[in-house]
C-alpha cells in the first residue's frame, strides 16, 4: 500500500523536526504557524519529548536554548511579530553557539500586518534581524515534502555548526495540504549532538574550535563545568575585553559557515538547459513561477527557473554563474523587493535583473509572472 497521504506544510515541518531528533519545543501561539506547535504538543510526549507553551515569544526562545544546552534538540516556531520579539536570543544562540531551529511561517507585515495572508517579507529579517555581526543559515521549502526535508536539514545544520537556523516558511506552504510521501526513519540522516573530545583534566576548552572551526561544547550535567555567556568570550567560554579575542571570535563565527558554504547552499534548476532567461524564486512563490515558466515554454520562450532552497548564506556563486549565461533574470518574491538586491549584487552587472514583486495579501497568479517574463524578454531583445 502506498504511504502517500494528504498533509499540511506545517504538519510536515513538525514531523520533519521530530524525525531529525527534536525532543523539545517551546512556543507561543501565532497565525499562521500554530499548527506546528499543535503538532509538537501532540507528538512530542509520545516519544518522551516535551512541549511547553511559554508566556511569550521571548520566553519561548529562552526555553529552547536552555533545553538545547541541557542536551535536547530543540525547536520553536512563530511568525513575523513573534520572530521580531525573539531576535535578541537568536543572536544569543549565534554568539554562545547553541543549536536551535526557529521556524518562521511568514505572513504579511510590518507589525501585526495581515495575520492569515501570505508574504515573503522576512527575508532580510532572517539575515539581519538580530543585532551585531553574525552568520545565519535560512532555508525555504516550496512543497509539503520539502517542509519535512528542510526541517530535517535545519536541525542537522544547527547541530553541525552549532548555530541558530531559521526555517523560512511562508503561509502558502505552511497551510497548503498536498499529497506527500514521507521517508522512512532509516532513510533520514541525522547529525548527532557534538561531544567534547577530551576531559576537563586533559585541558578541555568548550569554545576551542574543532577542525571544522565548530566547537564541541559539552551539554550541561556531564561534569565539564562550562560557562556559557552572550558576552564575547575566548576558548574557555569566559568573557574577555580584548580587541584581538573579539575580532577572532566574530571571525570564527562567520568562517565556520563560510567554509561550508558550497555544501549548505542548495539551489535547484528547472528548464535551464537551453534557457536564455531565468526566473529566480523561492518558497511557495516558486510553485507559481514554475507554472509561469512552463506556460512561457509553451509560447516558445527559452526561460528556466532557479529556485533558492538555501536563502542564507546567499547563493552568490550560483547566481553569478547564472548571470554569466543568461540574457536576463527575473526575481519573483512576495514582498516589496528584498532578495532581488542580493541577486543584483551577485549578478554584478553581467545581465539585467528585474523584479516582479507582490505585497497585497494574495499570491502570484501564473499570468502575472508570465507577463513579467515576456516584458523581460522584450527588453532583452530591444
Amino acid at each position, binding site marked *: 500500500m*502506498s504511504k*502517500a*497521504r*494528504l498533509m499540511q506544510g506545517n504538519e510536515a515541518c513538525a514531523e520533519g523536526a521530530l524525525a531529525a531528533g527534536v525532543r523539545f519545543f517551546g512556543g507561543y501561539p501565532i497565525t499562521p504557524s500554530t499548527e506546528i506547535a499543535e503538532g509538537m504538543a501532540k507528538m512530542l510526549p509520545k516519544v518522551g519529548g516535551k512541549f511547553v507553551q511559554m508566556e511569550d515569544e521571548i520566553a519561548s526562545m529562552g526555553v529552547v536554548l536552555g533545553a538545547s544546552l541541557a542536551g535536547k534538540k530543540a525547536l520553536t516556531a512563530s511568525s513575523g511579530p513573534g520572530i521580531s520579539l525573539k531576535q535578541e536570543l537568536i543572536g544569543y544562540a549565534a554568539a554562545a553557539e547553541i543549536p536551535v531551529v526557529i521556524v518562521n511561517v511568514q505572513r504579511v507585515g510590518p507589525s501585526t500586518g495581515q*495575520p*492569515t495572508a501570505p508574504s515573503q517579507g522576512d527575508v532580510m529579517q532572517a539575515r539581519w534581524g538580530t543585532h551585531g555581526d553574525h552568520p545565519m543559515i535560512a532555508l525555504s521549502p516550496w512543497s509539503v515534502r520539502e517542509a519535512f526535508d528542510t526541517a530535517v536539514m535545519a536541525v542537522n545544520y544547527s547541530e553541525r555548526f552549532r548555530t541558530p537556523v531559521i526555517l523560512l516558511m511562508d503561509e*502558502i506552504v505552511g*497551510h*497548503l*495540504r*498536498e*499529497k506527500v510521501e514521507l521517508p522512512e526513519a532509516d532513510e533520514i540522516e541525522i547529525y548527532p549532538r557534538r561531544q567534547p573530545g577530551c576531559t576537563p583534566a586533559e585541558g578541555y576548552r568548550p569554545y576551542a574550535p574543532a577542525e571544522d572551526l565548530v566547537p564541541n561544547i559539552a551539554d550541561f550535567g556531564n561534569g565539564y563545568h562550562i560557562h556559557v555567556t552572550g558576552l564575547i568570550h575566548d576558548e574557555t567560554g569566559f568573557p574577555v575585553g580584548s580587541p584581538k579575542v573579539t575580532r577572532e571570535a566574530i571571525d570564527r563565527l562567520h568562517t565556520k559557515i563560510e567554509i561550508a558554504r558550497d555544501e549548505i547552499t542548495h539551489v535547484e534548476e528547472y528548464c535551464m538547459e537551453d534557457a536564455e532567461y531565468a526566473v529566480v524564486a523561492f518558497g*511557495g512563490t516558486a*510553485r*507559481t513561477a*514554475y*507554472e509561469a515558466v*512552463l506556460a512561457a515554454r509553451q509560447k516558445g520562450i527559452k526561460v528556466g527557473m532557479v529556485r533558492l532552497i538555501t536563502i542564507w548564506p546567499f547563493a552568490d556563486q550560483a547566481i553569478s554563474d547564472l548571470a554569466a549565461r543568461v540574457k536576463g533574470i527575473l526575481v519573483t518574491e512576495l514582498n516589496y523587493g528584498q532578495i532581488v538586491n542580493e541577486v543584483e549584487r551577485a549578478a554584478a552587472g553581467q545581465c539585467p535583473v528585474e523584479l516582479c514583486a507582490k505585497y497585497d495579501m494574495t*499570491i502570484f*497568479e*501564473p499570468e502575472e509572472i508570465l507577463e513579467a517574463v515576456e516584458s523581460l524578454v522584450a527588453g532583452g531583445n530591444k
Partner: protein
Amino acid sequence: MRKQIRLSGSGGQGVITAAIIYAEAAVAAGMEAVQSQSYGPEARGGASKSEVIIDNGPIYHPHVSVPDVVLAMTQKAADKYYGDLHPEGILILDTDLVPEAPDFKNIIRVPITKIAIEQAGKSLFANIVALGVLTKVLQLVDLDTVRKAVAHRVPPHTVEANMKALQLGYDSVE
C-alpha cells in the same frame, strides 16, 4: 484531467473540512491533490473558502484559476465566488441559503442544509451532505473511497451519522 474545485460558505459550515476530506479521498484513489484555504480572522460566521485541485500529474501553482465546480453554501459566498467559473462549469447551491441564484448556465440546487437538519439530524452534517453532492457531480473519486476518507476524519461516534449524510447528499442529485 485537471479538476479545479472551490467550496465556499461561512465560517463554521465546515466547507474547509469537506475540501480536506475530498482531497484525502483523491489521494487515496492515487491522484495528486492540493488543498488550500482562505478565511477571515473570525473562525465562525466570516466568509470561508477552500480550494481543491486534482490531477494525475504534479500540481504547482496551488490556487484555482478557473474553477470547474463551485459549491456555495451562502448567498454571500455564491455572489462572491462564482464569477470566474468556467462557462461550462457547474455551480452547486444550497437551495435555502442561496435564495437568489446567480445568472449562470449550469446550476444544481440542493437543499443541503435542510437535508442535514431534517434527514441526517443536525445542521452540523451539512458539509458532509455537500460532500456527497460533490462526489456525485464530480465523478472523480468513487463514493466508497470518499466514505473511507470521511470515516477516517470524523469523530468515531459520529461515523454512522456522517455516512448517512454522505449518502443523502450523493442520492440528492441525478
